[in-house]
């Protein structure tokens, strides 16, 4: 095709760089925010503080965290009493076996039982066990959850579809910059013969934040 020859007219204005456009634009923030982010990033790279490779790797590392990593830890605790004891008493050592380093923060693992249900919030910010679960969910950062989790936890739990018997105690743990919490959910009855990988499929992100239980056994069928 010659330079200025088109066989057909485009019905809409495409601009001139079809191939330069992504398939779908990621929702971008305001131009001002883009300018500040680009400026800070480029200055940090020019000053040798970070490299583009460091940023790429940091994103990759964050993407690798989440439900499945947390589930491995929970299932190990379900199936290995010595590990569970270590996780509940000196979690640093236990997490090192999974290549997780919480430092400079501390992790406190709180265990659900027949009598106690634990849930985690950060009323002041969005502190979260990021080295295990990655970036917190949007609702965890919002005012609604942060304000009400400490005042009416049962009502908030109901909004997640979690209804607890009145005689079950609810303990709400308020995270901070230095101390993060992870809920160790209860292993469901009837899973005695299950393999590790079957058990891991039961454990959800929300069950480790404590806003829900693990998946129901029938959710895994089919």
């Amino acid at each position, binding site marked *: 095709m010659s330079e200025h020859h088109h066989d057909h007219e485009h019905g809409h204005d495409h601009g001139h760089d079809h191939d330069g456009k992504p398939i779908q634009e990621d929702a971008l923030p305001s131009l001002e925010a883009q300018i500040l982010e680009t400026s800070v990033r480029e200055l940090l790279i020019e000053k040798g503080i970070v490299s583009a490779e460091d*940023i790429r790797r*940091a994103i990759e590392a964050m993407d690798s965290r989440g439900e499945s990593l947390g589930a491995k830890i929970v299932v190990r605790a379900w199936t290995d009493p010595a590990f569970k004891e270590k996780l509940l008493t000196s979690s640093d050592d236990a997490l090192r076996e999974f290549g997780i380093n919480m430092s400079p923060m501390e992790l406190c693992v709180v265990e659900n039982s027949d009598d106690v249900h634990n849930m985690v919030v950060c*009323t002041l910010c969005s502190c979260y066990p990021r080295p295990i679960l990655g970036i917190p969910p949007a609702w965890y950062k919002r005012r609604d959850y942060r304000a009400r989790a400490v*005042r009416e936890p049962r009502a908030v739990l109901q909004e997640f579809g979690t209804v607890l018997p009145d005689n079950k105690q609810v303990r709400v743990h308020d995270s901070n910059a230095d101390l993060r919490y992870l809920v160790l959910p209860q292993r469901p009855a009837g899973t005695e013969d299950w393999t590790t990988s079957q058990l891991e499929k039961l454990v959800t992100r929300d069950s480790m934040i404590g806003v829900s239980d693990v998946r129901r056994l029938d959710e895994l069928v089919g």
Partner: protein
Amino acid sequence: MRGPQDYGGLDAGPVDPVTHEHVPTHWEKTVDALMMLIFDQRRQLARVDESRRMQESLGEDYHKYPYYERWLQAVSWLMLEKAVFTQEELDAKQAEVRARLEAARDGV
């Protein structure tokens, strides 16, 4: 005194676990990565409480910022405070980046 970030116990609306989910965009992950990198053990340029101090100093503006734009502001202020770069360097860089992004936006 209650700071702008201190939501605990206040009145607020219902939590909607369906609509209040959001998969972080690549831009948000980039800001997240910058914060994590300045915190990390190799760099130790700032700590979480310092980032919070910066965000809380926004006062009532705290509520106006989208989450990661607040983080970005904190990273920028922390790097200025730690003299990693100067305000003059940041101003010059922003002017250059503005011209570049506006040109890209306008398809020049």
